[in-house]
């Protein structure tokens, strides 16, 4: 009871201070709304050692979360209940009620929901070879961070979240590598590559990021093809292809914009499919396949320019006449 009253008082005091609270006080970070309930629970598990309050009653309910400003109850609640499946928790962007620092760069111990999810998913990646792209991997990842495996409830899309996170991570790595190469070329420290070579290297680099997970990659691909994942996976694919072409030097503003990206998407997808079935040493067959596909596209492009019939068609219809 005394603990409850202390918690209430502290909660009110903390609310008054707003976002200034960064140092651990007698109480753990307060969370006075249901929306923050789960997030605070996760944090509290980390802060358990700092707290000097024994967890009080474990018969917490959602109503108490709503009304009470006490915080100890959440500690035990977190390890037991399924509040993780609470949909409102997803929309929280910070553990305190002040709306000033919603960008996530608050005090040292606070992080946004997204950052937390990202950390869990990154940790989960090392369990993928073992558990596949699944909730078990996410749960294992959460446990390595010291969080309860109930934190998997944060991920509505389950395995889809994990795969999409991995894809985004790979894409941003590739963008960094390409930007670095671009900088080198601009500084004159490296020679600019031929378009075909550049595309081949970019796709090879990107596909090599799948090698540690190649055993389970077919499962990931099928997850990406699920209807609710298709918009996201298409978006990531189009960003990837756009980035590669941009760094390859494409600055077209007509239909070439579309045809180039369509061609590269085709090359990338087929090469990925070949890769998951490839058993040659260091995936040499895949890279040969990639070479051939890129060569095909290059040939098609040069042939289109050279095709005679376009010119004679123009002559026939009088479009070449000078006016």
């Amino acid at each position: 009871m005394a603990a409850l009253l202390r918690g209430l008082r502290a909660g009110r005091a903390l609310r008054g201070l707003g976002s200034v609270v960064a140092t651990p006080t007698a109480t753990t970070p307060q969370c006075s709304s249901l929306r923050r309930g789960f997030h605070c629970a996760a944090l509290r598990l980390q802060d358990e050692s700092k707290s000097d309050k024994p967890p009080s009653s474990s018969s917490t309910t959602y109503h108490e979360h709503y009304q009470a400003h006490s915080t100890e109850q959440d500690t035990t609640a977190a390890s037991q209940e399924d509040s993780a499946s609470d949909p409102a928790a997803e929309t929280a962007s910070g553990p305190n009620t002040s709306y000033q620092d919603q960008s996530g760069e608050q005090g040292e111990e606070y992080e946004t929901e997204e950052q937390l999810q990202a950390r869990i998913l990154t940790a989960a990646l090392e369990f993928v070879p073992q558990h596949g792209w699944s909730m078990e991997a996410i749960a294992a990842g959460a446990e390595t961070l010291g969080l309860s495996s109930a934190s998997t409830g944060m991920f509505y899309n389950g395995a889809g979240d994990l795969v999409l996170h991995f894809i985004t991570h790979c894409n941003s790595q590739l963008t960094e590598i390409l930007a670095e190469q671009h900088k080198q070329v601009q500084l004159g420290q490296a020679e600019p590559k031929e378009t075909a070579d550049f595309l081949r290297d970019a796709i090879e680099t990107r596909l090599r990021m799948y090698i540690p997970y190649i055993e389970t990659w077919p499962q990931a691909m099928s997850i990406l093809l699920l209807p609710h994942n298709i918009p996201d996976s298409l978006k990531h694919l189009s960003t990837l292809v756009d980035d590669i072409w941009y760094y390859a030097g494409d600055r077209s503003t007509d239909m070439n914009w579309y045809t180039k990206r369509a061609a590269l998407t085709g090359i990338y997808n087929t090469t990925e499919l070949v890769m998951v079935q490839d058993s040659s040493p260091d995936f040499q067959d895949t890279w040969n396949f990639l070479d051939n596909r890129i060569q095909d596209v290059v040939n098609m492009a040069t042939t289109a320019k050279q095709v005679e019939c376009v010119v004679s068609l123009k002559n026939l219809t009088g479009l070449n006449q000078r006016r």
Partner: protein
Amino acid sequence: MQRAAHTALYDWSQIVGPAVIRRCLKCRATLQQSSRAFSVIPPPRDSEEKEMLDRILRVDHAGEYGASRIYAGQMAVLGRTRTGPLIQEMWDQEKKHLEKFNEILAENRIRPTALLPLWNIAGFVLGASTALLGKEGAMACTVAVEESISEHYNSQIRALMEKDPERYTELLKIIKEFRDDEMDHHDTGLEHDAETLPGYWLLKNAIQLGCKAAIYVSQRV
């Protein structure tokens, strides 16, 4: 405070979502800065602004491309008549506009509208068919199209001014300049007996309706 920065930096490498967009924009912004001293549009602060600017520039690019094709169609029919040089002059100005937008699109990695082939054909057909009605027909088409475009530029200028005039000064300058050019073309069309065309009112409204539809679609597709 240092620990906060340290944690923020550590988490920075883990963050996905809006932060990735920010990072990609940072990469893109650095590229812009390295290739030009200044850019016409400011690096977008968030994906909403990026989408708004994308739409504005995509439809402007499509508009100039269409206008260029309309004049090409008119030239194909009237190129060797007395009005030829006049149409050629207006066409050259449109080509300059198109070049400018090509530059902006390429620099800022904006996707051009997928309907460009459609505007290619539709513009040429419109220009050629109105020119077949004679010089007055061509001028009436010019008046209708230029009026639509000017109105469209004006609404864009209003929208940008409402948002943040200082942030978009360069872009506003360009749009204003192009709008003034289009108004000149409009006035030229009127000077050269556009209104004497029988059915002028009908043709003008039909063309303007088509332009409105084209603008609506090009913003999105």
